Structures are given as structure tokens and as C-alpha cells.
């Protein structure tokens, strides 16, 4: 879906000091379909929950006063962590399904076109743009190649790692022979022992936190400095272009 909006702007006329009305054509493309946007925001909420609760599972809050029977703080924190873990996993499975049935932009996340030379050229162009060497960025309907690469390495691989190690640890509580043990129990000996899986799961948390920091910064910066909308796109689904110049 593509549509054009006419955007009127008042521009100062430097010669005589009057204001002139300028009509700019803005092209808008429907990029992110509703299920994809829903997935994004569900993931945002659950990953934030996971990071906060996960942090306090490793480094618990100060001791609660009173009898043990009156308190269940760690229990609630762990419950929230496990629930959010399920939500993020089910949402991610749904996201993979949407990559198959959704529009072409829904697939970008999962395969960066690493075997295409032209793609790498554009990655290089983006790196130069971020290094303040290129004056103008290119226009992209979906993700730019550098963003694709970052998304894939930091987010997709990161979240898969967290889901796998997370459910491996969860299987320890469910017990041997449980579905989680059958599916993910092999992960524990792979890492050595349970303690190692805990440690790497926590490293994974910092990996995801680093991703969030970069993701949010880049989204805001691109929204301001690039030639297309970013943040509003993940809410409305429409990508607005700020100019009509080619590329």
C-alpha cells in the first residue's frame, strides 16, 4: 500500500521577509502490519519485565521482615519472570509465523542478505552515514541493511539464546521428563552445568539490554535525521518519507 499526502509548510522567504506556502509531497508506505506491531509492543513489555525480574532473581532484594508464611516476594518475582518468558516465546513463535504469511517486510528481520555484494555496499554506506562521512542517508521502506544486521545479530540471535537457555533453566524446576526438559534439558550439559547456564543467561540479559539501548537511540536519531519516519511507523504501520527525491 502506498499513498501520497500533501503536506503544506510555511517557509520564510529570505528576500522580502514574507512567508511563502510550500507544498511538499510526502509518500507513505504501509510497512508494518497490525500483528507485527502488536508483537513488537508485547515483546517490549515482556522483555522489560524479564530484565527487571531477572536482575532481582540473580541479585535479590533486601530481606523481607516477618514470617516466611507472610511473604512470597521471590515467588512473585519468579512467577512474573516465567510468565513473561512464556509470553515473549509465544509472541516470537507468532512472529516467525508472521514472517511466513505476512508482507515482505515481515521477513527482513530473519534474513539479512549477507550473500549479496550490493547489500554489503549499503551496509558500508550506512556505516559511513553513522560516522558522519556521508552527507545524506539513503531511503528505505523497511530496515536499512546495517539495521537488519544489527537486528539479526543483537536481537534475533539474542532472543533465541535467551529462550533456549531460559527454558533449559525452567526445566530444572519442572523436573526430569517434563516437556521443557525433553526439549531444552540437553542445553545444561552443553554448557557444563546448571551454574554455567545461569551465568550465560545473565550475560544474555546484558546483551539484550545493550541491544535495547542501541535500538532506542538509533530509532530516535533516525526519526530525526533520516529521510523517513521511524517511531510513528511502529505505532501506525505507515512509513512516511520526508522528501520525494529519488533514493
Amino acid at each position, binding site marked *: 500500500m502506498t499513498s501520497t499526502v500533501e503536506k503544506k509548510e510555511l517557509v520564510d522567504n529570505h528576500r522580502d521577509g514574507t512567508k511563502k506556502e510550500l507544498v511538499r509531497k510526502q509518500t507513505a508506505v504501509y510497512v508494518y502490519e497490525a500483528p507485527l506491531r502488536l508483537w513488537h509492543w508485547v515483546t517490549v513489555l515482556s522483555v522489560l519485565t524479564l530484565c527487571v525480574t531477572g536482575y532481582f532473581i540473580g541479585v535479590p532484594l533486601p530481606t523481607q521482615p516477618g514470617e*516466611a508464611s507472610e511473604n512470597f516476594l521471590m515467588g512473585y518475582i519468579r512467577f512474573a519472570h516465567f510468565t513473561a518468558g512464556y509470553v515473549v516465546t509465544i509472541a516470537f513463535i507468532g512472529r516467525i509465523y508472521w514472517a511466513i504469511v505476512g508482507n515482505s517486510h515481515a521477513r527482513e528481520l530473519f534474513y539479512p542478505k549477507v550473500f549479496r555484494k550490493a547489500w554489503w555496499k549499503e551496509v558500508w554506506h550506512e556505516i559511513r552515514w553513522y560516522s558522519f562521512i556521508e552527507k545524506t542517508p539513503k531511503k528505505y521502506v523497511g530496515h536499512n541493511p546495517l539495521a537488519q544486521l544489527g537486528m539479526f545479530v543483537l536481537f534475533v540471535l539474542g532472543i533465541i539464546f535467551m529462550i533456549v537457555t531460559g527454558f533449559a533453566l525452567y526445566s530444572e524446576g519442572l523436573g526430569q521428563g517434563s516437556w521443557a526438559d525433553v526439549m531444552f534439558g540437553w542445553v545444561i550439559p552443553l554448557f557444563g552445568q546448571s551454574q554455567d547456564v545461569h551465568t550465560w543467561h545473565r550475560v544474555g540479559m546484558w546483551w539484550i539490554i*545493550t541491544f535495547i539501548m542501541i535500538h532506542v*537511540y538509533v530509532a530516535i536519531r533516525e526519526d530525526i535525521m533520516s529521510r523517513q519516519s521511524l517511531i510513528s511507523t511502529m505505532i501506525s504501520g505507515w512509513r512516511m518519507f520526508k522528501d520525494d527525491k529519488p533514493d
Partner: protein
Amino acid sequence: MSQLETFYNVMRRQGITRRSFLKYCSLTAAALGLGPAFAPRIAHAMETKERTPVLWLHGLECTCCSESFIRSAHPLVKDVVLSMISLDYDDTLMASAGHQAEAILEETIQKYKGKYILAVEGNPPLNEDGMFCIVGGKPFLDQLKHAAKDAAAIIAWGSCASWGCVQAAKPNPTQAVPIHKVIKDKPIIKVPGCPPIAEVMTGVITYMLTFGRVPELDRQGRPKMFYSQRIHDKCYRRPHFDAGQFVEQWDDEGARKGYCLYKVGCKGPTTYNACSTVRWNEGTSFPIQAGHGCIGCSEDGFWDKGSFYDRLTDIKQFGIEKNADEIGMTVAGGVGAAIAAHAAASAVKRAQHKGEQE
């Protein structure tokens, strides 16, 4: 011992008359709900079934497994050693020594090919052709391989034989390895722990003798009946964990009240063993009950995870030695600083080009 004793021989040796033995067989048949015809069959089995010969080898170890084993209460270790099995060779427990002892080992291997159980305490060092552990003038590695070749099954006693334990801890100068790295063609039952619980050791042996088969093992080769749950899963302090009540430091109010030892580094949540149910010394106590966290002695590489008193343990890959939070906060801090710098540079750049774009 030229002829292995049968169970009948053992009972006779302990002063039970043939009349009593036959009564016992009849009673057993009745108790099991079998017909009278089964009494002679039970008697026949008792008369002909030989006690299983066990060879107990010692590699690089500290004998803590043997020390634990001889304190078994259920069953009493004397019953295990003198009645249930035929412990043919165990250089720390046997009376004979030197060439005599080595001759018995050889004799059992020859005579009971494929029938004996090999129990291994400790592990072989591989560096310098195994010269760091010599038994009877030869590297332990050779003895182990030789005895393992004709064994029916192998029991790996303790964390040494199962995982490597302290002698395999970094930097492992002798290149000590767990026995499954050397013996790959035999069923190995891992009974880890430093040492394993006495009743777990005798329990594994009793199971094998009673049912004539290897107990059900988990993915890593440990008997499920003792190693399928973590200390944490059955810990009597678990309610304090769920409530969020912890010993914050030694000697504080929480320590006196018996709160959870998670924050002072207890490895109960990551350690598979039976301590919190079977306990130690006839079920008297176990480390957590004594007020100290579990150190995770039955887990692979427990010496190499940093302090016993930290919950977040160290990562030792890639030449670093920090815990996940130290690494994570450093990286996140660095990325945060880079973002701030990049944002500032972007703002400056944008301000410079503002005029040009219009």
C-alpha cells in the same frame, strides 16, 4: 579366594543352619505370594548365585569417597562388603598388599570376564604418559584400561571419576580427566560428590545387585533416583527463599533464624544431589542445615566457578575472570557513553547543516 562364595555360603558362614536357610526360603516364597514349589527354586538360586565380584581402583584421589562409603548406615557397609558383594580388590581396604594384591586383581579379571563390576575412585592423569599416578609400578591409566576392558559395568565414584574435580581444576597440570574420557565402550554410572553420600554409594550397589542391572541414568549418566533433583528443590530452607528472606551476611539476624543462604553463595539451586533428603551421617545433617551454603561439590567443574560465597559466579572464558554483571555493566556503560557521544556529534552536525538544507 579360589571360588566365589554364593549367598548360601555367606549365610552358612555367618552361622545359619541349613534347616534355617530352607525355612527362610519357604517363608520368602510365602511372603512373596508364590506357591510352595518356589521354595526350592529360591534355595537353588541362593545356592548358585555367586556374589558379584567388585574391583575398586584408586587413581588420583583423596580417599574421601572410601571414607564416606565406610560410614554407610543403611545398609551397613559391613553387610555390603562382607555379604552382598565380593570386594576382591581395594588397595585401601584389603589386607594383602604389593604383588599379592596385584595378583588378585589379575585373577579376578581373568576368572570373571564380563561379570565383575569395576568401581573407580579418582581419575587418571594423561600428562607425561600418565606418570603422575603410578600403581604397582605402572601408570594408573594402564591399570584402569586393563580392568575396564572386561568389566560388566563401571561405577565412577565421586566427582574425580565423574567430572575431574580438584586435580582437573584449572590449570590442571597433570591433565587429569574423568574416566569417561578414557573408557568409551562401557556403561559408566556416575556417582558424583566430593565425597558422594554414603547411602547413595551403597544404594547404587544394592540396586545393581538386587536387580542385576544398571539403575536408570539421566543425560549425564547419574542415577536418577539420587540425582534427579537439585538440593534447592527439597531444601528445608526453601520457604525462606520463596519469601525473599536471606542471610545477608554471616552472623546476622537472618543467619540465626535459619534464612535462605542464596545471597551468601549457596549452590543448592544448581546442584543435583540427594543431600537435602538423604542427608549425611545417618541423616543427621547436611551443609545447609549446619548454616553454610552448598558449594556444589557434585557438579562438573565446581572448583572453577569463582568464590563459593558468590551467587553470580565467574566466567573464565576468553581470559576474563569476572561475573556476568561486571561484564554486562561494563559493556552497557561503554555503549551508553558511545551513544551519548554519538548523539552529541549528531546534534552538532545537524546544527551545522541546518542552513544548507533549505
